[in-house]
């Protein structure tokens, strides 16, 4: 249920940013972030269109590793 999937900022144009997550790119608004963001930062996206918070690189990598593990193991029996 609504996992915190970090997306990496690829480019920034004003209040908008192009982000990437597991190969999927999209454009999101940075207007709800409380702190400045820069290319290379990891952010959590909500409502499919807003970056809501920045994530520390180590925490982002741990989350992405976890999700990669989920994907590698395929659809398991127990779901969240």
């Amino acid at each position, binding site marked *: *249920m609504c*996992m915190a999937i970090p997306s990496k900022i690829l480019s920034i144009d004003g209040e908008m940013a192009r982000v990437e997550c597991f190969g999927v790119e999209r454009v999101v608004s940075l207007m709800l972030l409380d702190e400045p963001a820069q290319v290379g930062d990891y952010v959590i996206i909500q409502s499919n269109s807003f970056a809501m918070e920045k994530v520390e690189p180590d*925490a982002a990598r741990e989350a992405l590793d976890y999700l990669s593990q989920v994907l590698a193991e395929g659809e398991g029996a*127990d779901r*969240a």
Partner: protein
Amino acid sequence: MITPAQDGIRLCLGVRNGVIRDVDIQSRRLVSATAPLLGRKPDQAARLVAQLFSLCKLAQGLSAAQAIEAITPDFVLSVPQQTARRFLLLGETVLEHGGRIALDWPSLMGQQPCLTAVKVLRRALGDLWRVLYPAGDWMVPGGGVLHIDQYGLHQRLSAIDDAFAALALPSGYTQNPGSPVAWLLSAGWGLDVSLGLTALPDLPLAELEARLAADDGRFLAQPDWQGQPFETGPLARKADHPAVAAVIARHGLGLAARFAARLAELLDAAREMRDLAAALCNDAKSVFPADLPPADGVGLAVTEAARGRLVHRVEVRGGLVARYQILAPTEWNFHPQGVLFQALAGQAAGNDPALLARLAVAALDPCVTCAIEVK
């Protein structure tokens, strides 16, 4: 293969002769996400759960802690920890409901989302745990070290009032959360669609435990109780609220009632937070034997999260997590024959059936990503 970035619900509507005849709801949610918890120590699993969920993060982390605590049959959480957890869950409810109302409702009225209110709420409540559990150990089974920052706490409560003042809603809504319904209905979006209410009842824990223990994945993906899908969330909890009941009496049990219930619950949660603040008190590290949970056992936790009923179940074998299950509210509400299906099937399609679908999703579970196709 679905990637995490494509996670969500796919809704396909079949329209014939101006009526929505077919409603096909398919979950593309990346829901098999608990396997990597296996083989970890229970307290590590709770910490990871809290880290991995962005929405209902506190409900998820606290449910994990509670499920692990439940492995010890005679364990009782201290009153200060119970109060602090309740306070955190209320804060999350205010953040989730307030954020959705600030983003979604102005859009319904053709206005810009109320970003100021969202930012104020996030600043006040996004890390509310800091003013209760400065070490960040709020999700530790048995409870973390409670050390209340009274100044910070009251600053954050005050910010909730600021956010409410910034919400672009008709005046008087704090006294009567049913009042904005007429305003929303004036947009003419079909919010008065009638669909009834089949509220998820309290489930007997022994039966729920047995159902989960025997589950092969189908119950978690498409839950039912005695063969019937149920609705969970604000209206299932708030149908008896006077303002919500008044909306139901006037406009029926449609989408408007769901919006009114969300607002009523938002205001009630903020009020309860203010009431509860005086009861928050420091608590030393709990007596829960964190390094002595039973080596084998099963624990179950049921939490009313902002979006609905959340269930966690953990099996521990040899001191490590052997199985972890999460039953999320989305799976009840977006069951293929559940309340979303009922909200749309047989309805007049109007000029824009996709918009009606978006409204229904926003009323039932505004946080889920939903791709809509009309045939």
